[in-house]
């Protein structure tokens, strides 16, 4: 386990989020610890509902007000604790130091304002300037995300743009104040293959240019394989495995990761029958004893069903961890 990494830009320790609903309360983020360095891309993969977005929103401290509460842990950005900041201080951090690209380009822009206004608003909040300079910086931000004819596009409404273009505008808002960390929550799910490729390339270029860290949330292993340096795999609110991408693809330590990787048909390989994971993930409010993946795991034994596995190193290097009894035994 990579404890107390001194060079970590964003360091999350034992983060716990509780959600309370009428059906009961549960922890969609359960004791999460991870960190990212500058210039690094950390992938977060996991099934729908596994708590990826919750993790992201708790880092921004923008959890749904009544439903969810942070129940412990620490989030340090550049050594500064974010969880204890006042709301006002936190507002200064948002957008400026840590920013976010949301999932759906169709709905994440306000339809009532021009895209120029929406970019300008972010700039004005964190780097005020005169009308003219603001406008120039707005156009510049659009240019950086490769929007054609940015001088004209600033006056467009989101409704007049294509999905790919809108997602680039969302990107422009996120990077406009040159944040240190960007959280991208499935930014390409609804985009076409070709557009997606363009967008990912753009993100990479921007990262090279600014040295920002990216937390990339996705459930597409293709993206992880091509974009990320390290990855954490989540299942039912827990981190079940984390480590460098190459290692995890080469030798997944958790049965869930293993199954997930082999369940994806390959574009070029053989057409053998796909591996499947039987069953369904547990409902969030289900009370889980033992390993949450045990009911679907082909290796599960009695202990897996009765006792939750600890997080252990999967190999000697210490940068690859997993929580599985098999790894403990090994």
């Amino acid at each position, binding site marked *: 386990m990579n404890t107390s990494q001194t060079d970590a830009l964003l360091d999350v320790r034992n983060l716990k989020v509780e959600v309370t609903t*009428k059906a009961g309360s549960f922890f969609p983020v359960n004791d999460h610890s991870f960190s990212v360095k500058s210039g690094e891309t950390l992938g977060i993969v996991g099934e*729908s*509902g596994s708590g990826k977005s919750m993790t992201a929103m708790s880092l921004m401290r923008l959890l749904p007000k009544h439903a969810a509460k942070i129940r412990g842990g620490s989030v340090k950005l550049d050594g500064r604790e974010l969880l204890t900041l006042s709301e006002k201080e936190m507002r200064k951090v948002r957008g400026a130091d840590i920013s976010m690209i949301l999932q759906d380009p169709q709905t994440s822009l306000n339809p009532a304002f021009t895209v120029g206004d929406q970019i300008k608003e972010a700039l004005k909040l964190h780097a005020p300037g005169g009308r003219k300079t603001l406008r120039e910086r707005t156009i510049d931000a659009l240019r950086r995300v490769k929007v054609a004819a940015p001088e004209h596009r600033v006056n467009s409404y989101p409704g007049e743009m294509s999905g790919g273009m809108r997602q680039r505008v969302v990107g422009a808002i996120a990077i406009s104040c040159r944040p240190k960390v960007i959280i991208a929550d499935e930014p390409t*799910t609804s985009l076409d293959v070709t557009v997606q490729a363009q967008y990912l390339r753009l993100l990479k270029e921007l990262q090279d240019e600014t040295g920002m860290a990216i937390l990339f949330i996705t459930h597409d292993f293709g993206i992880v394989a091509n974009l990320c340096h390290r990855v954490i795999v989540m299942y039912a609110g827990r981190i079940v495995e984390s480590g460098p991408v190459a290692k995890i693809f080469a030798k997944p330590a958790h049965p869930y990761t293993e199954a997930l990787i082999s369940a994806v048909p390959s574009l070029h390989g053989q057409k053998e029958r796909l591996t499947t994971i039987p069953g369904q993930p547990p409902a969030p409010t289900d009370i889980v004893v033992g390993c949450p993946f045990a009911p679907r795991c082909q290796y599960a034994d009695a202990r897996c069903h009765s006792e939750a596995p600890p997080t252990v190193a999967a190999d000697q290097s210490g940068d690859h961890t997993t929580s599985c009894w098999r790894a403990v035994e090994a």
Partner: protein
Amino acid sequence: MAEVQISAQRPRRSLWQRSRDFPILPLAVLLIVFIIPAFFAHWIALHDPYVPNLRARLQPPIFFGGTWEYPLGTDRLGRDIYSRIVHGAWYVLAVSFIGILVGVVVGTTLGLIAGYVRGWFDGFVMRLVDISLALPAMLLALALAAAMGASFLSVVIVVGFALWAYFARQVRAEVLLLRNADFVARSRVAGSSHFRILFRHILPNVTNTIVVLATLQVGIAIMLDASLSFLGIGIPRPTPTWGLLVSDGRDFIATDWWIAFFPGLAIMLTVLSVNMIGDWLRDTLDPRLRQV
């Protein structure tokens, strides 16, 4: 994709699961002031609601100098207010129920067809909706009463007329969405006729809307009935509809306040409870309707 996941994460809870937050108190109130009186008036009334007792005129309610014989006091002709309210419940129930039924049947049918076939018929129905919204119900009621005389029927027609357009509009809007739903396409692929699609697939999906809307309209119907009585064009005397009771007692608000107060309270409690239950139904069955 986003949508899919949202629904994937929040599977529908069954009605039973949601019944935990059912508003018990409003239901109890409704039963006590509305439903039970409506059906069992003869058993629970203390006096004949129609027979004046000229010796017991204007008795105040109990605790205000009255007696248990007339717990809510008596009116100008010495009739027991409590018994009149209890008997009136039936008519209020009947007017709102039948009036809304008229509105539901007319509005839903037109809305369903308009939304499904689109084209000129849709345009025509929407114009009718405009027209009915443009003609204040109260004026129509007045004109109708002048034309055919006030009667139970005319009140029901007015209530139905005032409400159908809301059903038509809402149902149509929903049908417009539903007709493009995949399950409708699937059903057509399977070979279903338009009739079957409309009534087997689309109608069941708007019933929640209709039920919720109907519940929320009960209040409006009762209020309309009361206003009609106020203008002297409600259900004719001596039927003790609540609206008539309030409106008969309105002149005495400053002195013999109980004549109008208790029927008014009955209206208020009923409408309040119905609305609360309607709100709950809406939140439970059909959150899309939040804007109704």
